């Protein structure tokens, strides 16, 4: 429970007096405080710097070092203070956590030192407040990446690696040319051939010399054979390289889908298609067009250039901004082209023959190119033309620097927003878990409390110590408060727990519900829902729960504080009478025994005694609702439960509550 809430607990308990006259049954006894001390100041000496605080401040978080009895190990008898040989700067933040309930991460602090301190004091880093959590996670990620990089480079420098297979060595060689000389050679050779290929493509088209007949030939046709040989050589090298990479790739499917491999394929395909199609004269036109794809070989350089890769990546990530720019430009172009077309329609011999024809004028004008091949002749046309060029300056020249500076900002921000969203989901999930933990804890302790009473009756006192778990005083007081509320209203909380089968019968003002009927209701609803939600994941359980609850009450919960999504329909509880059952564990089916394995360790020894044991087995509940999400085929559930009902043995002992 949060620190703040603990401070208000006495108030909430006192206010519970308001329920007393309304309740129809007596209230449970309050938990006694064994040694009630007056609040005292304790001194914490951290490497010489003395901090002082109230004892109760520290006890707000009983599962940390300072809040539990673990700090007694650090108690110095001579000076009557607790001495910690740790960093006092970080301790300041930690102590503030106890005081305010919020853990902050100081920016000047090294992340790993901070983590160590948190681990020492038993504080989970997840508790860091919203104000500092993002920074903390960022720093942690950076640090992790740095460590990983360091590890990688260490590994690279080490000569001896755990023996990699030939394939893995090859892959490493391809990805990191600096690993071995051979890889480096290969890297430079392929780079050279890419350059050669690109240059031949370019030079092919240059006219060099004339042939008798006064026709200027491009070099490609004059020295056709030479160029063909060069092209073949390059393609062979590229093909070999591609096949080698394909062979070495750890995941071939992923490799084939990657951008670089697509570029490789596109670079060499035209050649092979050309080989296949040389004979056919009709499609040679198409073949020529294919040659244009050879220019994609230049993109192969991106394997060699880190900068190119980063540019490609940033363009990809900034795609939405660029897309918007394009869209707004298109809008402006269409508007102005239309206007210019209609303005110039009147003039004779106008070049603005149609709106699409005017697009060219608009683009050339807006980008301030102004080729001059199309000019407006009418006055209206000139006016609109000048407006077009002015607005072109605005539309194009302004956003470009903004976009350039935006994209580093937006790029980082996007990443952070996604991260925050993902973190938020995870944190909310953890908070939900903690809340169910607290309500589960309540029911656990209630069961323990009731068991304690039962044990007192049966006289087996030696098992008592198994029962009492280490719930803090605050927790037991909170549970007592919830218990009082249950008594007032005559209802009881339902939380799923395979062991919470402390069944108590009702008195007076609430009715019995037939177990079988209840179970049937639950199973029906679960059956209805099961076909729709195949996965035994948590979400499907939520669906099952809410449907079950809503089926009964017709209202869905709408409350921020309710942890209903996390509670699952499980056991039945009625008040004031306890059934204690003798279980015969071997006779239970495996699923039941697996559930029973989650029982308190303290309970299991009891099963061995022949007398009335405190082994608690769960009542037959549909296996589809197991919390750990084991999937069971739906048809088996009815038979399953009937199995269980027959195996529950009959030594039911009814013990009335005090």
């Amino acid at each position: 429970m949060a620190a703040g809430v603990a401070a208000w607990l006495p108030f909430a308990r006192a206010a519970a007096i308001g329920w007393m006259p309304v309740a129809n049954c007596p209230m449970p006894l309050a938990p006694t405080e064994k040694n009630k001390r007056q609040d005292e100041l304790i001194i914490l000496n951290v490497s010489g710097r003395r901090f002082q605080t109230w004892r109760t401040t520290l006890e707000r978080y009983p599962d940390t070092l300072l809040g539990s009895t673990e700090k007694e190990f650090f108690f110095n008898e001579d000076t009557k203070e607790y001495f910690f040989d740790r960093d006092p700067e970080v301790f300041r933040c930690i102590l503030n956590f106890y005081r305010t309930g919020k853990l902050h991460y100081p920016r000047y602090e090294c992340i790993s030192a901070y983590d160590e301190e948190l681990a020492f004091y038993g504080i989970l880093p997840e508790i860091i407040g919203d104000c500092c959590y993002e920074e903390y996670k960022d720093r942690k990620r950076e640090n992790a990446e740095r460590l990983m990089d360091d590890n990688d480079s260490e590994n690279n420098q080490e000569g001896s690696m755990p023996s990699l297979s030939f394939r893995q060595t090859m892959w490493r060689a391809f990805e990191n040319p600096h690993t071995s000389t051979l890889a480096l050679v290969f890297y430079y050779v392929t780079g050279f051939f890419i350059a050669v290929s690109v240059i031949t493509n370019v030079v092919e088209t240059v006219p060099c010399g004339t042939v008798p007949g006064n026709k200027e030939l491009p070099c490609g046709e004059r020295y056709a054979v030479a160029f063909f040989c060069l092209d073949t050589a390059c393609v062979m090298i590229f093909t070999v390289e591609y096949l080698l990479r394909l062979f070495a790739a750890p995941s071939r499917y992923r490799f084939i889908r990657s951008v670089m491999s697509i570029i490789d394929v596109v670079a060499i395909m035209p050649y092979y298609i050309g080989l296949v199609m040389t004979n056919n004269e009709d499609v040679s036109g198409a073949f020529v067009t294919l040659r244009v794809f050879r220019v994609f070989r230049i993109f192969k350089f991106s394997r060699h250039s880190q900068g190119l890769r980063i540019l490609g990546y940033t363009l990809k990530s900034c795609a939405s901004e660029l897309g918007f720019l394009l869209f707004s430009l298109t809008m402006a172009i269409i508007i102005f082209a239309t206007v210019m077309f209609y303005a110039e329609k009147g003039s004779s011999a106008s070049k603005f023959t149609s709106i699409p024809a005017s697009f060219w004028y608009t683009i050339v004008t807006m980008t301030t190119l102004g080729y001059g091949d199309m000019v407006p002749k009418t006055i209206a046309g000139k006016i609109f033309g000048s407006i077009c060029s002015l607005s072109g300056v605005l539309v194009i020249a302004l956003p470009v620097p903004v976009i350039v500076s935006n994209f580093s900002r937006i790029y980082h921000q996007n990443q952070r927003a996604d991260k925050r969203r993902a973190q938020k989901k995870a944190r909310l999930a953890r908070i939900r878990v903690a809340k169910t933990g607290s309500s589960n804890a309540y029911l656990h302790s209630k069961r323990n409390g009731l068991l304690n009473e039962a044990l007192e009756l049966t006289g087996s006192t030696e098992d008592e110590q198994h029962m009492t778990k280490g719930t803090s005083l605050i927790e037991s007081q909170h549970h007592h408060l919830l218990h009082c509320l249950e008594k007032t209203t005559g209802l009881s909380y339902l939380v799923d727990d395979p062991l919470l089968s402390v069944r108590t019968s009702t008195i007076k003002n609430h009715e019995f519900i037939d177990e079988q009927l209840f179970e049937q209701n639950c199973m029906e609803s679960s059956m209805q829902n099961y076909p729709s939600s195949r996965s035994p994941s948590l979400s499907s359980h939520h669906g099952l729960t809410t449907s079950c609850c809503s089926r009964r009450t017709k209202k869905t919960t709408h409350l921020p504080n309710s942890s209903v999504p996390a509670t699952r329909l499980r056991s039945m509880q009625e008040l004031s009478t306890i059934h204690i059952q003798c279980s015969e564990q071997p006779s239970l089916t495996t699923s039941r025994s697996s559930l029973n394995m989650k029982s308190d360790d303290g309970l299991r020894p009891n099963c061995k005694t022949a007398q009335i044991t405190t082994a608690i087995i769960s009542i037959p509940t549909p296996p589809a609702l197991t919390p750990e999400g084991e999937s069971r085929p739906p048809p088996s559930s009815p038979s399953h439960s009937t199995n269980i009902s027959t195996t529950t043995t009959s030594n039911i002992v009814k013990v009335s509550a005090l």
Partner: protein
Amino acid sequence: EVELSTVRHQPEELEQLLAQTKFTKTELQSLYRGFKNECPSGLVDEDTFKLIYSQFFPQGDASTYAHFLFDAFDADRNGALCFQDFVVGLSVLLRGTVHQKLKWAFNLYDINKDGYITKEEMLEIMKSIYDMMGRCTHPTLRDSAPAEHVELFFQKMDRNGDGVVTFEEFLETCQKDDDIMSSMQIFENVI
């Protein structure tokens, strides 16, 4: 209306509070430290109060009952709880006589503070209490459960059957009921 963000409310002097309540000085000191830690401005408004109270009842909706509680504690009706309201109320609840406690409870149920508890008032209170339990309970919460509970209450309390419960009737019935008497004492040692 009090502006909580800018005003820092100072409580009455320690001596005055000692005179008004039955707490000892150390108890008052520790109570104030907790209070001030939670509400540095010195005042609790109704929304904060509802938030705090709701944290104790994660499965249900405690806001309606918290509203009634707030009205019961806010003796001077200024829309905010100051430390004095808080501690005077607590003193009645924890250190008061049974008579005073019952008077406090009566005051809580009497929503319009006219000295009579009508069935409508009681129904509202009852519904708010049941709301705190939430939806997933056993036995399942029927919509008629609060009304039935109110009927039971009135049968017990309303002696002359005039449809309202006065403080005398309330006091008389409660003093005769052992369960209620004993449960009034269970929170003796909360502080």
